């Protein structure tokens, strides 16, 4: 059974159809790239999957469970995690607290009230910060981090809950070449523990790390397949040569 499956997902904003009958499948342990020209519906599809937008039509299943009507909170509890395109860290809180906030999200109320999970979560917070090269910045306010560091912090927060499916909307936006390379290595290592869907404009980055690509164009799935298949696809070449 596929980990994520959307069937006939359509999202209309008034007369404008941002997504039309999108069928999209992600298998467990897969690093799945979602590409397409600007306005092709990549971010809208991610938002529909994460619950930020409700589809006008169609169904979304996660691990066999229908989550089409589920709230973002219910989807997160079902194992879905999202990194937004625009960074949305908590600028006034320290980097440490940003990650702890994400990590303790599934703790019961009584545990939060009596701070029962704090000591247990501390080690995990520091591990995640070390993994994302943010250990030295643990005490800094998240708002003073560079854009690239904020992107990493976002990924750290998205990873904190050990999701089954991680949705990353433009994870390398604003990063240097070195930071992009490190992010790519991290994502490849991560797919051992969860499936990842990446929306990204940097095709070289996508080519290097992804197992499977889905190409969207004008709200429809144009092509889906391995990186090699997509590179050979005449339809995709036409779209990219004429519109990108």
């Amino acid at each position: 059974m596929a980990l994520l499956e959307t069937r006939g997902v359509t999202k209309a904003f008034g007369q404008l159809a941002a997504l039309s009958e999108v069928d999209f499948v992600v298998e467990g342990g897969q690093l799945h790239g979602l590409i397409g020209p600007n306005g092709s519906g990549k971010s809208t599809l991610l938002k529909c999957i994460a619950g930020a937008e409700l589809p006008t039509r169609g169904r979304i299943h996660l691990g066999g469970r229908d989550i089409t009507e589920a709230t973002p909170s219910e989807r997160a509890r079902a194992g879905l995690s999202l990194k937004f395109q625009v960074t949305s860290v908590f600028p006034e809180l320290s980097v440490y607290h940003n990650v702890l906030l994400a990590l303790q999200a599934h703790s019961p109320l009584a545990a939060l009230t009596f701070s029962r999970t704090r000591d247990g979560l501390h080690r995990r917070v520091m591990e995640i910060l070390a993994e994302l090269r943010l250990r030295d910045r643990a005490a800094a306010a998240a708002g003073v981090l560079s854009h690239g560091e904020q992107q990493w912090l976002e990924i750290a927060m998205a990873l904190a809950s050990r999701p089954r499916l991680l949705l990353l909307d433009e994870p390398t936006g604003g990063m240097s070449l070195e930071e992009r390379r490190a992010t790519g290595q991290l994502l490849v290592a991560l797919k051992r523990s969860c499936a990842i869907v990446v929306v990204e404009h940097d095709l070289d980055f996508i080519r290097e790390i992804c197992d499977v690509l889905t190409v969207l164009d004008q709200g429809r799935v144009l092509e889906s397949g391995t990186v090699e298949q997509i590179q050979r696809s005449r339809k995709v070449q036409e779209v990219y040569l004429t519109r990108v």
Partner: protein
Amino acid sequence: MLKTSAATRVAALELALLAVFAVLPAGLQEFRVIFVTRVLILALLALSFDLVWGFAGIMSFGQALFFGAAGYTVALLARDAGITSVFVVLPAAVGVGLVLAFVVASFLLLGRNPPSLTFVALGTLTGSYAADRLARGWYYLGGQNGIPSIPPMTAGPWQITEGLTYYYLALALLVGVYLVCRFLVRSQLGLALAGVRINEARMAFFGYRVQSLKAIVFAVAGAIAGLAGGLYAFHEGFVWPNMLGVILSTQIVLYALFGGVGTLIGAVIGVVAIEIVSFVLSDAYPTIWPIMLGLLLLGVILFRPGGLISVLVPRRERIGLFGLARPGRSQARAEAIDGAA
């Protein structure tokens, strides 16, 4: 470190205020002790507002609803059932505030979509206004005159009358509630509330049940307001519709803004400062004191938007300290964080 010095200053302020309140009655005439007791009870009410707005980001213009409803409940218990035991009436007041606040939260906060700040502010304001009108028009509740001549609260064979005994009862309850609130906002729950206050939508994507969290905090704050209402009713000896209404609800907001929200101690300072200034001004300038008080409030809110507490603890120092779980509880963790700083 900056954070430590801010924490130390606040702790020093908390202890200084406690020490002052502990010895204050020794140097005051009885009518002034009664006045300060009223201030302590209103400080409880201000704490309830600070908890919902300063920490959970819920703009409640209806805290008087829970205060007044609890006041009327204990007044009715005393008048109609002859129940005045402190061990019954105060828990009853807490229960009424808790349940009523949870009912209001169910309507205003627990929908599928997160409500806007304005919706909650107007919803709580409407609740407060409606309760005031209801009390004014209901003969059983005494109409415009309210319920007078409530018998004194009792503890076994003893009566707890206004004066020293009531003063120390109110002080003990204020300190107890303050410590509970302090514990809550510095726990992991406090960190979650800080997240809700800063970016509610993001918290839902982490998996937090944001609306439930807000409803629980709102109910706890309602319980505190209820406790204050029960104490106030027996202290004053009567209840009247203004205890439920919009004017008192707004006054509570002003107390907290004047002292500084999101710090707990700021709310207490706000009540103390406004009530003392009102007391002094009304004595010295009986005709124009409300205008002077209004100008003072306006001045503080315009020039010190962080409230009086910002004189002692600037806003930038509050960031990362109040409402947050402090990372340095265990030695290993403290070293990790301090080493990184």
